[in-house]
Each structure stands twice: as C-alpha cells, then as structure tokens.
C-alpha cells in the first residue's frame, strides 16, 4: 500500500459524490429554478387569496398553508429530482462508472439524497419569503426553522423512493412514474385542499400515505400536537424506501 493510500473511503466518497451533485446544480441551475417555480407560484396564488383568513386551529391560514404547501413543495422536489437525475446517469453511462468503482452502495445513495436537499431548502426559503410578503410575520423564527428542519428530514424517504424508480426506469419513464406517484399522494393527503373538503374515501385513504404523515408532522410544529404516530410512519417509510433503493442499486442493469 503506497503513501498515497488513505483511509476507507465510505465517508470520503460520500463527500465527493455530494460535492459532484452540488456542482451539477450550481453549474447548471436551470433545473433548480424550474423545480421550485411551480410549487412556489402555486403557493403564492393561494396564500394571497386565503392567507389572511383564520384556520380552524386558530392560526392564520397562511401559517397552516406554509406547512401543507411546504410539504408539497419539499416532496415534489425530493421525489422528482434524484430519480430523474439517476435515470439520466444510467442512460449516459455515468452510473456504470460508479458501479464498477470502489464506491460503497450507501455512499452513492446517500449522496444522491443529500444532493436533493438544496432544492428543498430553496423551496422552503421561497415559501417563507412569500408568506412574509403576503401575510406578514405569521410564525416566529424558531417555529419556521423547526418547520423547515422537519420538512427537510421528512423529505428524505421521498428521495429514496425517487432513487428506487431512477435505478430501474428510463428518464422519461421515471418522470412519468414519479408524477403518477406524486400528484395522487399530494391531493389525497390534503396538501392542496384541506381534507375536510375531500370525499370520504379520500379521507380514509390519507392515513396510509407518507405525505399525509409528513404534513401532520409539519402542522404539529405549529400547533404542538402529538406527532409520534406520524414520525413512526415516516420512519417505516424511510426503512422500506431505503431497502428498496438499495436492492434496486445492487441489481442495477447499466
């Protein structure tokens, strides 16, 4: 072993691959811009219409919308971007290069997930700014920071689901599949319109969806409600999605 050999590369490879992902975003920021445009624009429209009305919880609607549309915005970017980028990497052959290298599977998957976080962070920063501009200071800084942290962490299982799809589907198919997963979950979890306005069968389906549990966890940061069941549901989702992504990577055809 030569003097240039360094310690086992798990963490170092993770760092390198995260840096590669971030460089891709910084050097071609167009994808980042358009990823956040739709959820932020959608939110701006609704919060300007209803933001100053009181919600049933007593909080301004703008505050609860920050939690539910924040969930939608974070989930949309975390679910769409890693999978489509991964499918593109498979198409170009870059994934094959990584697969025959000494990169541990956990480092490659972990880096893809972490590299999706800037999208989510930008979405949340934009939503907070829009909320402040339209409805004023409806939440304290501490609550906002806690909400952002919870949504970023809670978005991780969606990035893993995205990767599992990206490891098996073509870029076009991945986009179609992930959209087909995203929008029904968003609607059936009450992220665009409150569940109270939804038909009963959708209200019955909602507790089986991870998006619902993330939005309830986000709302709990505002109301102080107990969210233990929501955390557990998200942990189970993370474990299942992680196992699925790991299996898909190990059996990757490149």
């Amino acid at each position: 072993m030569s003097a240039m050999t360094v310690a086992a590369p798990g963490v170092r490879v993770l760092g390198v691959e995260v840096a590669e992902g971030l460089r891709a975003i910084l050097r071609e920021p167009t994808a980042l811009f358009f990823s956040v445009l739709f959820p932020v624009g959608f939110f701006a429209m609704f919060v300007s219409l209803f933001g100053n009305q009181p919600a049933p919880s007593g909080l301004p609607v703008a505050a609860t919308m920050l939690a539910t549309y924040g969930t939608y915005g974070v989930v949309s970017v975390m679910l769409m971007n890693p999978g489509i980028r991964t499918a593109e990497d498979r198409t170009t052959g870059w994934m094959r290069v990584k697969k025959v290298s000494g990169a541990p599977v956990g480092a490659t998957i972990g880096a893809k997930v972490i590299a999706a976080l800037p999208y989510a962070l930008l979405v949340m920063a934009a939503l907070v700014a829009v909320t402040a501009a339209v409805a004023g200071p409806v939440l304290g800084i501490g609550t906002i920071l806690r909400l952002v942290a919870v949504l970023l962490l809670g978005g991780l299982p969606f990035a893993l689901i995205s990767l599992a799809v990206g490891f098996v589907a073509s870029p076009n198919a991945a986009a179609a599949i992930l959209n087909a997963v995203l929008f029904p979950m968003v609607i059936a979890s009450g992220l665009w319109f409150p569940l109270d306005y939804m038909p009963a069968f959708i209200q019955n389906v909602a507790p089986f969806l991870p998006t619902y549990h993330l939005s309830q966890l986000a709302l709990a940061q505002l109301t102080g409600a107990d969210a233990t069941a929501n955390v557990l549901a998200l942990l189970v989702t993370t474990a299942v999605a992680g196992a699925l992504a790991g299996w898909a990577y190990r059996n990757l055809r490149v």
Partner: protein
Amino acid sequence: MDEVLRIAGVHHRYGLVQALSGVELDVTPGECVALLGPNGAGKSTLIGLATGLLAVQEGEVRVCGADPRRAATRRHLGVVQQSMGLPRTLKVGELVRGAAARAGRAASAAGPVLAEVGITELAGRRSGKLSGGQRQRVALAMALVGEPDLLLLDEPTTGLDVTARRAFWRTITARRDAGVGIVLTTHIVEEAAAVADRVVILHGGRVVAVDTPAALSALLPDRTISARTGLDDVALRAFDGVLSVRRDGDRVRVATAVPETVLRAWLSADDTLTDLRVEGAGLEQAMFALTGEDIPGHDEKTEVSA
C-alpha cells in the same frame, strides 16, 4: 500475489440464452490477456462478471482473491469502457480526483496520473467540452489513479486516432511491465497481437483457444497476399485457391492456402499489379478459422506500437 483474476467453471444465462459455458481464465500480475471473438461470443458478459456488474450464477469469479461484487474488492480494479459517460458539468481534474477517492487514494494522486496520460492541460476543462479521444484519455486516467492490480479494458481505443492509440498502449504496457494484470477486449486484432501475452478466443460462450498470438497465428498454414491492383474483388475471388478477399485502403489482401497457384493466375491476368507481398496468416485469420465468424469492424485500419 497469485492470480489477479480467476474465472473458474463459469456458466451464465440470460433467460434462454446461454452466454457463457464453463469458462476458465486466470490472469497473473504483469500479464496482458486479450479476449477475442465475434459479437455474442461472451466477452461483455465476462467483463460484466469481472467488474461485479453481473452476479455469478454458476462457477467462481475472484479479483485479487475476493468477490468483485464487494466495493472493497473493486478498489483493486481499473476499468476503461468503450464509451464512458462522464457528467458534462464536472471538470477533468474533479473527475480524476473523484475516481481517486472511490479507489481509496488521496486526491493528490490525480496530478501524476494526469501527467502520465498527457492531459494535465485539460484538468480545468468540463468533460462536456472534450473530444471523444480526450474523454477516453480521461477514462484511462480515472482507471489508473487508483493504482489498480487489474485493468479491464473494454474496446478502449475506440475513437482514438493513431497517435493517441500509440500513447494509450505505451501507458498500458508500462503498467503491465510494472506488474498490473490486464484483460483487454478489442475488435482491432492487430492491437491484441501487439500487446497481449495470451489471446483467449471465445465463441458461443465457450473458450475455443488460448495461446500466445504467435502460436495461434501459426495454427494456420494459410498465407496472405497483399498488393495494389486494378482488379475488382469478383475477379480476384475467381482465381483457384482464393479463400477470402479484403480491402485495406488502396491495398487488397487475399488469403490462400496455395499462394503459388494464386500468384501465377494473378500475375498473368493483371498488368496493374504492384507492391506485392506474401505474409503468413495472422491472428485474424486464425480467429476466423476457429470461430467461423469474422470480428466486427476488422477492416478498421490501425497502427500499434507497444
């Protein structure tokens, strides 16, 4: 160290298609082995197993004594593929430093390898702005930066011009001389003949011959007559004893087991005949004879100086 690559009793299927049947192959440190064979012979499957991309169905595959499906084992490997997909947003230096990290080497290992491959001046250029030949040199640098014990080269010189090919093989043979084991697939038979210590000819998923390039070439009593001529291929094939006719630029190459008979007929029929040479059968003819099939792209002109 014993073998850097050991393939023992390997069978592999894709559904109903038997891709490999009982393949045996050992590669020792400092040895270059070329895999030759027509399309579908099993070369890519063998490379896929050695790189860990494919799971072994039956038999044993070991790289430096360990399972190549494990990431730690693959740190002994350097791989150059025909068309390396490099992210267009990353710069050459970043790619090679990243490859060093994946192989467990310090980022400082990148500089000497960039110099060895002759692309130091490209270090700050994004891969999206590289030519095909430059990308292959970056791929080589990425393969070498981990100081591999085994290099797997899958059609590595596709897209390189003659000068770049010479430089490529100089680098590879220097590594071989330093003790690195090399497995090469190529459709350019002259390359295999020039750099390989042993040639493995695959056909239908089976190893049909293993020997030195010279020994395999000597299997055939045939000769090749090459010349410049005004005759077309139909006229040349009409001579008694002609086995095949090929064009190589402005030269024609005629294979035969009875060169004297063919030459008598050709000289009497062709006033335009010039620059006549008679040579022994080459590796390409040996492969053709052993497999009954041609190597795809065999007409590609090449010049190898290893």
